[in-house]
Every structure is written in structure tokens, then in C-alpha cells.
């Protein structure tokens, strides 16, 4: 196995790396860059716990080879918040009780971010559709949907 070079931007920081060719994006983030927000749940693209944004779109990082991300931009949950404050999505999740064990939360929030970036005022059905690839086994989805609605409203207001 020949190591390969990789130029990748993660949470705004540029990296030049030598990586194993069979490394998944999820392994790169967790094991090499120590960004453990993205979780490995099922490892076969069904649970969405490993969701990150790749060039702005939600992907399962367990189904992407790191070597396929040459020149791309990755956003993980660690890159979402500002230095001091929570992102409005994170704050809404806390306030609406949309977090219980927290394992699905980073992926859920990033799927929500991909939606809101594209569609700042999503309807309830659009929210459900956007998070349909993220499974939660604790809270039920109602609080999560409410949190995303609330965050979208606040983000839209803050841009007025």
C-alpha cells in the first residue's frame, strides 16, 4: 500500500497530509486529526452519525475515502461554533431538549446546517426530509424538528 498525498481543508484549516490509501474520511477526521465529533455508528451509511459537510453538502464520512477529498473543504461539528458561543443550531438543540445521549447530534446538526444554508426558511416536511438519513434512538424526532425550525427562524432574523 503506497501512502498518498492529500490537500484538504478541515474547518477552515488547510492540511497537507500523507495518508493510507484505504483511509476513510471518518478515520482521517477522528484518528489523524483528532476531531471526534463525527461518530461511527453503523459504518455502512445507514445511521448518519458520521455526517459531515463536504463542499457544503451532507455526506456520510464512513462512505468516502479520504483520498477522494483532494482539494475539498470539510466542515465538522468542531468547526461550526464560534470561539466562545454556540452556533444558533446548537443553542436551539439545547433549549428545545433535542439532545439526549448526544451520539446522533453532530450529524443531525450538520444535516440541518446543509438544509438551512440552501433553504433558509424550510417547512416541516423539508426538515424531516433533510434529517431522514440521521437516526436518533433517544429523543424521538419532534424536539429535533422543533429545534431546527427555531434555529432557522433565528438565523433568518439575524440576517435582517
Amino acid at each position, binding site marked *: *500500500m*503506497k501512502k*498518498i498525498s492529500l490537500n484538504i481543508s478541515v474547518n477552515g484549516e488547510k492540511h497537507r497530509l500523507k495518508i493510507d*490509501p*484505504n*483511509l*476513510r474520511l471518518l478515520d482521517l477526521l477522528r484518528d489523524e486529526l483528532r476531531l471526534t465529533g463525527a461518530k461511527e455508528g453503523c*459504518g*455502512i*451509511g*445507514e445511521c*448518519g452519525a458520521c*455526517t459531515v459537510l463536504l463542499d457544503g*453538502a*451532507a*455526506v*456520510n464520512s*464512513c*462512505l*468516502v*475515502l479520504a*483520498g*477522494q477529498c*483532494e482539494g475539498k473543504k470539510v466542515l465538522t461539528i468542531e468547526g461550526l461554533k464560534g470561539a466562545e458561543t454556540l452556533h444558533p443550531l446548537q443553542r436551539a438543540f439545547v433549549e428545545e431538549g433535542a439532545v439526549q445521549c448526544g451520539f446522533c447530534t453532530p450529524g443531525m446538526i450538520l*444535516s440541518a446546517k*446543509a438544509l438551512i444554508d440552501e433553504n433558509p426558511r424550510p417547512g416541516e416536511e423539508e426538515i*424531516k*426530509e*433533510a434529517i*431522514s*438519513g*440521521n437516526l436518533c434512538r433517544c429523543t424521538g424526532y419532534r424536539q429535533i424538528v422543533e429545534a431546527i425550525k427555531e434555529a432557522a427562524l433565528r438565523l433568518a432574523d439575524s440576517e435582517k
Partner: protein
Amino acid sequence: MLDFDLIRAGTLTEALEFLQKNGSSTRVIAGGTDLLVELRSLSEGSPEAPDYVLDISPLEELKGIREKKDLLLIGPLVTHREIAASGPVGRYAPLLARACSTVGAVQHRVAGTIGGNIINASPAADSVPALIALDAEVIFRSARKKRKKALKDIFVKPYLTDIRPDELLTEIRFKKLSEGARSGFIKLARRNALAISRMNIAVVIILGKGVVKDIRISPGSTTPLPDRITVAEKVMTGKKPTAELIRKAGAKVAEEMIARSGVRWSTPYKEPVIAAMVSRALREALGDELASG
């Protein structure tokens, strides 16, 4: 994860030359949503374990949706999401846009490609029945030559097509549906989202002077190989599309499913359900053109 070398192709020519030399020990990766699951399930030293994985995802030559006169040309790297949102696909092949919009969840539609959906050759693929109802053709290229084949003729058995080790799928093409054409796609799965088709059905129906001029009925996860069910199409061809005839066409598809797939544990369920799905798809496609009597 298996050990393999990752080859990142810069151009289509480079990719084809690599396959010319190493095709039989290489797997091609595009969106990765099926291949990475498969690679992880293989053990080191298994005969299917590849030495190389060839990444074609950056190849511009294999992207994009183009119109050429009465044809729609789709690059194999076009994602399900791009197809679902495409203006030309929505106009000239709405059943394909619908089929691609039902694949997996957002994450799979963002990454997964139509070419991957075809070559993975899952009997439960969603885009394939729609493409077969569109009478789609595919183009395979190797470093030496190019060949064109009807999509329905490439499937050898579930999860296997007749693509050769030195070839890439380089284009999917079909005739735009004419203005008066009606079409539909229905998927039945265990859940509404993030679900694999238990069965699906794609139909195209073209009327002229109140009778059926052209009809294509293409079910998925129903027969061992994807195909149009011409015996059911004949039930309606040349006739007024009545509710009774639609019911008969559905029953014919169920009959043909059993003839081709045999009686299986799921048959008592699938038989009435596929019949109802076909009738419903035809009824919905026809809308107010459904003939009385």
C-alpha cells in the same frame, strides 16, 4: 478495511489506460456509497479483494446532463440529487427525477451516482426501472473501443453486468419523452425514507386519438433481471385506457413475475401488491385521460 492502492485518475484517457493494464484487479469508485460497504465486508485475500481502487470521481468528462436534439445524455457521475433537481430531466423524463429522489437519504443522493446505481446492478436499484421505461442505452468505453447497448441487455444476474474489466460506463442516453407522454414511478419500501425498494414500478404511456399508442411497464425488485413486461404492455396497446384494462395489465405483471421468479416465500404478498402498484402507477400517469367504460 482491506489494503489496496488508490489510483486517482486525472483524465478519462488515463483511467482507461490504467484499466487496460490492471482492470481485472481493480474496482472503480465514484460516489462510494455501495463500494465502501462492499470493500469493508471483504476479507484480505478473498478472490474479490482488489489490488487497486480507481477513483473516477474527479473526471469532468463523465459529469453533466446534456441535450442533443431529441436525446438526453447523462454522465455516469451525475448524482441522484442532481438528477432529481435537473430542469431537463424534470421536463423530459420526470419519472427518472422522481425515481432518483427516492434513493436513500440526502447523504446517499449527494454522493451516489446514476452510473454507480447501474453498474452495482442491485435488483432494488431505483433509477434502473425508470431508465428501462425510457428505453435508455448505455455507452461503455475501453482504451481501444466504444460500444453501445440497450440498458436492459447489460444485466447478467443480480449485482453483475456485462461491463468488461477494461471498460468504464461513459454515458447514459435516452429519447426525451414527447410532450403528451405520461409517466410515473412508485416505490414501495418498509419506510418512507432511507429505505431500499421492496418493489418499484416505472411506467410510460403515450396516447393518440384516445387509444394507447406506446406503453412501457418496467418493474424493479420483481423479476431476476430488470426488464419491460411486454406481455402486460400488449394488454393495453391500441386500446382505450380503461380502469378494467389497467387492472388486467397489473394482473399480467404479477403473473409474469411468478413465471420469471418462481413462487417464493414473499409471493403471497408480492403478487397482489405488484398488480396494485402497476394499476396505480398507470392510473396516476393517465390522470384525467383515464377512459370510462
